[in-house]
């Protein structure tokens, strides 16, 4: 499956959940699939989608909160998995688009061809973890994890095949923040 197919399967499942997206192609491709005010497109601060998402989830315990992360991003901040597990927000769903490369910078390999990130999450203490490899598995896995008590982790294995000709996020960082905050508080 391609990353874009994963996003196309995920997008219709989302309601009004605040969603923090990793930098690079992940923000960019998801923006082109579905631009929602609940999307926090992280354009810099590689590795921090997970901690930002944790902060949102803790501040808004009644709102389901999503993190749409990348394998390179997760590997950069693996300690944050331990923070998420110990803070244990019931409302947090951590989704990782694992293409085994830093695709945004030219598809140099990461380490996730050997390291199973969902097992790292599991042993860190996430309540439930799942790995899917086919687009039709995404909806049932997401729905199962959505019902479960968080933090939960969904690893989606994809081929590196983002479309580099697609446009970048057109909103300014401040617009992204304002829309995102408004969708949460107001």
């Amino acid at each position, binding site marked *: 499956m391609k990353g874009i197919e994963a996003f196309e399967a995920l997008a219709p499942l989302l309601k009004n959940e605040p969603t923090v997206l990793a930098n690079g192609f992940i923000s960019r491709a998801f923006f082109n699939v579905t631009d929602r005010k609940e999307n926090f497109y992280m354009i810099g601060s590689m590795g921090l989608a997970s901690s930002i998402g944790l902060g949102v989830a803790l501040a808004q315990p009644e709102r389901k909160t999503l993190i749409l992360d990348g394998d390179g991003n997760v590997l950069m901040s693996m300690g944050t998995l331990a923070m998420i597990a110990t803070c244990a927000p019931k409302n947090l769903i951590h989704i990782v688009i694992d293409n085994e490369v830093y695709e945004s910078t030219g598809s140099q390999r990461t380490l996730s061809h050997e390291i199973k990130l969902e097992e790292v999450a599991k042993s860190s203490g996430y309540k439930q973890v799942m790995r899917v490899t086919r687009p039709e598995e995404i909806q049932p896995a997401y729905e199962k994890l959505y019902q479960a008590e968080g933090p939960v982790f969904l690893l989606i294995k994809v081929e590196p095949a983002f479309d580099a000709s697609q446009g970048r996020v057109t909103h300014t960082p401040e617009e992204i923040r304002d829309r995102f905050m408004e969708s*949460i508080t107001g």
Partner: protein
Amino acid sequence: MLSSKIFVDKLRGNGFDFFTGVPCSLLSGLIAELEADQGIGYIPSVREDAGVGLCAGAYMGGKQPVLLMQNSGFGYSLNAFTSLNLIYNIPVLVIMSWRGCGGNDAPEHIIMGDINEPLLKTSGMEYSVLDENNADQVLTTALKKINDEKVPYTLLVKKGLFDERH
């Protein structure tokens, strides 16, 4: 000496309600006070940049966050400040211990101690040096920056300011 308890009460009194950080012995009294408080608590961050991310998310979720760190952690979190907080305008109150201040500390702190202020300035991070007598005044300034300009504001803490508990 500034009492950790009194300062934590001032932070709470000014609406700060979310606390995280990576410890420094100079801040040990503050962290002990925060951890003793059942109501608000303190979240241990694994790295200072993760703390920056955590506070950014908490802020956008409606909290008023405080991040405690040693100045060594400023190095780790510089990219987070410059490519997250300072471009999205996401404020946070940073309480940063100034190790190596005046060149009088362990070798690993000397360089950062020397460049701490210039590095804050050059990266556009506004700050004050906290002392025994200016707590109310610097918190007023910090809140103005945080609420009006939506930028991070740093309070530098020298050795011996707070009661240390280790």
